[in-house]
């Protein structure tokens, strides 16, 4: 086949490069969504860890109080 004129070939060349860029953008979008999910999970885990620590501190304080009362009695 003879070479296409520039105005017609240009459309195909642009289409090929746009397809590549679009695929890349979609992939980056998916990766961004994944990172967003990971970041949300980290927040949840941090909250859970803080709650656990607070509960453990409270229990430790309670047992210390109980021990002190036992010693006093």
């Amino acid at each position, binding site marked *: *086949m003879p*070479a*296409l004129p*520039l105005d*017609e*070939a*240009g459309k*195909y*060349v642009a*289409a*090929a*490069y746009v*397809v*590549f860029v679009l*695929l*890349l953008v979609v*992939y980056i979008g998916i*990766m961004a969504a*994944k*990172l967003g*999910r*990971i970041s949300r*999970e*980290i927040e*949840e*885990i941090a909250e*859970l*860890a803080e*709650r*656990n*620590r607070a*509960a*453990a*501190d409270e*229990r*430790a304080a309670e047992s210390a109080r109980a021990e002190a009362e036992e010693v006093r009695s």
Partner: protein
Amino acid sequence: MKASTLRTLALLTALLIGAGFALVFFYAPNEADQGFIQKIFYLHVPLAIIALGGFVVGGIHAIRHLRSGDPVHDARSYVSIHASVIFGVAVLLTGAIWAKASWGKWWVWDEPTLVSFLIVFLLYCTYYPLRYAIEDRERQARYASVFAITAGAFVPLNFMAVRAAQSLVHPRTFGTVDGGLPGDMWLTFLVCFAGIALLWVTLVGFELVAKRTSGQLSRLRRALDEGTDRPPLGSGVAGRIAPGGAGTR
């Protein structure tokens, strides 16, 4: 892979791809036979080579996984194949556009190069259902590795068989009797190739980090959930999650 390494890789990739595309449109001459449409070559061919190379890399990681039993190699094999399948989609789409412009058809079924690439691509598309059809993680990794090795060995064999078929339709650009590419086209091609290769490495790196991080998070969550059910040990949360917690997969 460290975050700073990934950032450098991503920057280098953007730079090389940008330079490559600039060379394509402002430096490389139009090809005598195909004219401007040949510019697709600088995108399509590197994508195809890297996709096929990536499948082979996936097979090599799979061999290492079977030899060592280390799940890190399985993750690398999976991510290599995953990135190569995505590159494969780009190869098929850009190839179809080039075929339409050059041959007047989106697809030519009697062209061995095209059909063989499609076969390889479809073969690797079956990797996902095969992998996720198995629940037991160790068995899943083992079977996926066997698949990756077999399919990875098929890639160069397939390539050689196609070369031996000596088709007259699909252009042979490298190592032709007429001399192949001139210097300026070679330089443009090499820069584009390096950019696309780095893009593959960067995407694999990002995927691996994301996979490892979500694995660590799951382990951390499990350890914390177990921690809430147990009586307090008096050493706080950090003490409880440290031993089995944030390991690397």
